[in-house]
């Protein structure tokens, strides 16, 4: 790691340990997620990608955790993190607009409907603000979830396979949208798709083993979202696949 102090919105982990009964998922794991950039995390099923993301988000997972997780400026991550899961997690009884405003509603804060509408327009859902989630397609629902994530206006965004349930075209469009509107934020994206990681990630980590080992990150050149037709990217995909196949039986 360079000697310069980490970005204020970097995520710094020191001596992270996570146990589920006798199983040690992380043992004294230390890493720094660079601030203001996209970091993608790949790894075989069950290796601990989601557990790591949940620890960043301050969510308990049933195991016993120890160690230190803080922001680059030494402060806590609480209140600075927005979370986007594989499932859109839209509340079915609220309209799309009210779902985007959920954070303010839950905190009892003032609801900025004008900003929520602007964000919905940004994700192409201006006309659907009054609809309930059931009336939307899978891609639209994930776009609404993205607008909700943006509404939180947090410097750190944690994404757990948010595009995995979508068809190829919708996924491609949403990746592009997310890369554009989340640029400048610290984004940690857990994905099972090496190409998605190569398209979006400034730093790509492959997790492997038990307890987890983290290899040196892969750093593709060029600005994300990258062109998938780039032969360099395809060569890097082969590298990632070989790292993944060396790290476990299957890629989740």
């Amino acid at each position, binding site marked *: 790691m360079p000697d310069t102090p980490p970005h204020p919105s970097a995520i710094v982990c020191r001596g992270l340990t996570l146990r589920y009964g006798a199983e040690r998922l992380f043992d004294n794991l230390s890493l720094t997620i660079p601030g203001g950039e996209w970091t993608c995390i790949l790894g075989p099923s069950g290796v601990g990608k989601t557990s790591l993301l*949940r620890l960043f*988000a*301050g*969510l308990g997972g049933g195991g016993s955790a120890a160690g230190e997780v803080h922001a680059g400026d030494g402060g806590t991550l*609480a*209140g600075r*993190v*927005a*979370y986007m*899961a594989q*499932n859109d*997690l839209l*509340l*079915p*009884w609220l309209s799309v607009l009210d779902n985007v405003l*959920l*954070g303010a*509603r*839950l*905190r*009892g804060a003032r609801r900025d409907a004008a900003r929520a509408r602007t964000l919905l327009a940004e994700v192409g859902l201006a006309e659907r603000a009054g609809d*309930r989630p*059931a009336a939307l397609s899978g891609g639209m629902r994930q776009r609404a979830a993205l607008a909700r994530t943006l509404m*939180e206006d947090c410097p750190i965004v*944690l994404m757990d396979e948010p595009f995995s349930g979508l068809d190829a075209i919708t996924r491609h469009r949403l990746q592009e949208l997310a890369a554009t509107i989340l640029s400048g934020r610290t984004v940690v994206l857990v994905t099972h798709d090496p190409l998605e990681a190569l398209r979006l990630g400034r730093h790509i980590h492959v997790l492997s083993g038990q307890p987890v080992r983290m290899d040196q990150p892969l750093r593709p050149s060029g600005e994300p979202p990258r062109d998938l037709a780039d032969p360099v990217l395809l060569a890097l995909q082969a590298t990632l696949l070989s790292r993944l196949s060396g790290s476990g039986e299957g890629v989740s």
Partner: protein
Amino acid sequence: MTLTRILLPLAGLLLLWQGIVALTAVPPYILPPPARVASALVQQHALILGHALTTAVEILLGLLIGTLLGALAATSLAYFPPARRWLLPLLVVSQAIPVFALAPILVLWLGYGLASKVAMAVLIIFFPVVATFYDGLRRTEPGWIDLAATMQASRWAVLRHVRVPGALPAFASGLRVATAVAPIGAVVGEWVGSSAGLGYLMLHANGRMQTDLMFAALATLAVLALLLYVAVDRALRRALPWQPDTATPLP
């Protein structure tokens, strides 16, 4: 279409009833013919409606109080572990005692008036509401809770904005069951001791061999229960428009 679906089986039932009366020549004090029951309904409509009003008030009050108490108990069970440890076994045991056995005690304690019947209805309504709402509150989508936690939501805010709305479909199921069984509580209470209500009228008519009036009161009770159920069901559907109804296109 709905009316046809109700009227057609009803007409079939009346025909069968009339057929049995005609074929067996059963005396009218055992089984009066439908025409005689209809005549009792028309001739004594003021009397029947008066008693029906009493029963309706008992059922509605029981439903209101039972639902409120049930919802409160379910929330306590879901949110306070000591309440769960102490209240849950008590609730289960309370269901093992038949309501019929409690009716005389309630009449003794609360008198022959409205209170003992409402208490009976509350007792019968309480359990389905508690059981279903508590179940709904326990089974909130974990992802919603995680999302709320990352949004710095307080426990109260999660209950109010996530857990309770998420449990409403389960609560609605309990309320539908409660609505269907509520008349039982009120009528049993009236049988044990009262001076008004359809249960009282049935018992009174039975003692005087006025079987036609008894049947007329029974038919009125059935219509009352049906109307109440339809009203509650419609209100719940309107209140929960987001709840998917997948029953219509059965595979």
